């Protein structure tokens, strides 16, 4: 790799975490991300936002994408750059995420009609993170890419 500092690419450090698809293990992703974010210098409030967003993303992957099959993994990539933290959460796509869900906002009325009162996860992720993108991997898995900027 070139040592040329005039055209320096952002320095990237990637941590990869492969978790069993069992509810509760989203905590491992939350603690790992918060450990990294704290050391990158994120404000404690932002670290809490990050933990909530990761929790929602990994819980979705466990429950929906991987259908609670503990034998298959949820893959979490944490990419630390100088000015931002990028988080990818990917599942195996046992169930495809309805792309419409990724852009529409739930309403209180609709949520109350649901038995689990759920459906707020994606909305919450969008509220908490600076950039959010939902995609489908070539393998068919659901992926979400979230970015949180480091304000100096």
């Amino acid at each position, binding site marked *: 790799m070139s040592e040329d500092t005039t055209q320096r690419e952002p320095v990237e*450090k990637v941590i990869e975490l492969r978790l*069993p698809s069992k509810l509760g293990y989203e905590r491992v992703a*939350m603690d*790992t991300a918060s450990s990294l974010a704290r050391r990158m210098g994120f404000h404690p409030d932002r670290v809490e936002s990050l933990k909530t967003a990761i929790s929602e993303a990994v819980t979705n992957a466990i429950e929906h994408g991987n259908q609670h099959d503990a034998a298959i993994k949820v893959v979490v990539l944490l990419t630390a750059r100088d000015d931002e933290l990028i988080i990818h959460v990917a599942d195996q796509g046992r169930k495809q995420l309805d792309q419409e869900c990724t852009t529409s906002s739930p309403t209180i009325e609709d949520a109350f009609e649901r038995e689990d009162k759920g459906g707020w996860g994606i909305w919450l992720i969008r509220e908490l993170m600076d950039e959010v993108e939902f995609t489908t991997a070539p393998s068919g898995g659901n992926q979400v890419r979230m970015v949180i900027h480091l304000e100096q």
Partner: protein
Amino acid sequence: MSTPSYTQMSMELSLPSELGYEVIARDAVAAFARRLGISADRIEDLKTALSEACINAIEHGNSLRPGLRVQVFCRVEEQQLVIEVVDQGVSAFTPKGEPLTIVDKIAGVGSLRGMGLMLISQLCDEAGFVPRGSGNCFRFAFHRTLAPGLKH
């Protein structure tokens, strides 16, 4: 939804081989161990042992060479949590006979550094290098039902 078997409850973590990242590994594996019901005292021991094993992998196994990775595998067995720390084997571990005890160290026999492996073996229920095709693999285990405290 069936109860997942122990062997399915594994976690993998891959880190940049750079000093400082052992702290992230420590927080990730501690969160995983908490899910398994390992006691808080033993988790403190586990964190110390894992930090030492990761630092060994970064400093010795990978010889502080940039761009390399350290992998941490956490495997759940019925009685124990088995952790393997794997480096890329720039420098192969060569056993130098029986490790010195802390009494020897304090008495000035050998260097005051290099206590990592000794410390790990004191904290874990089982520890040592295991053969692997490429790279060094250091394996250590914590009983899942053991009472808090050091091994006897």
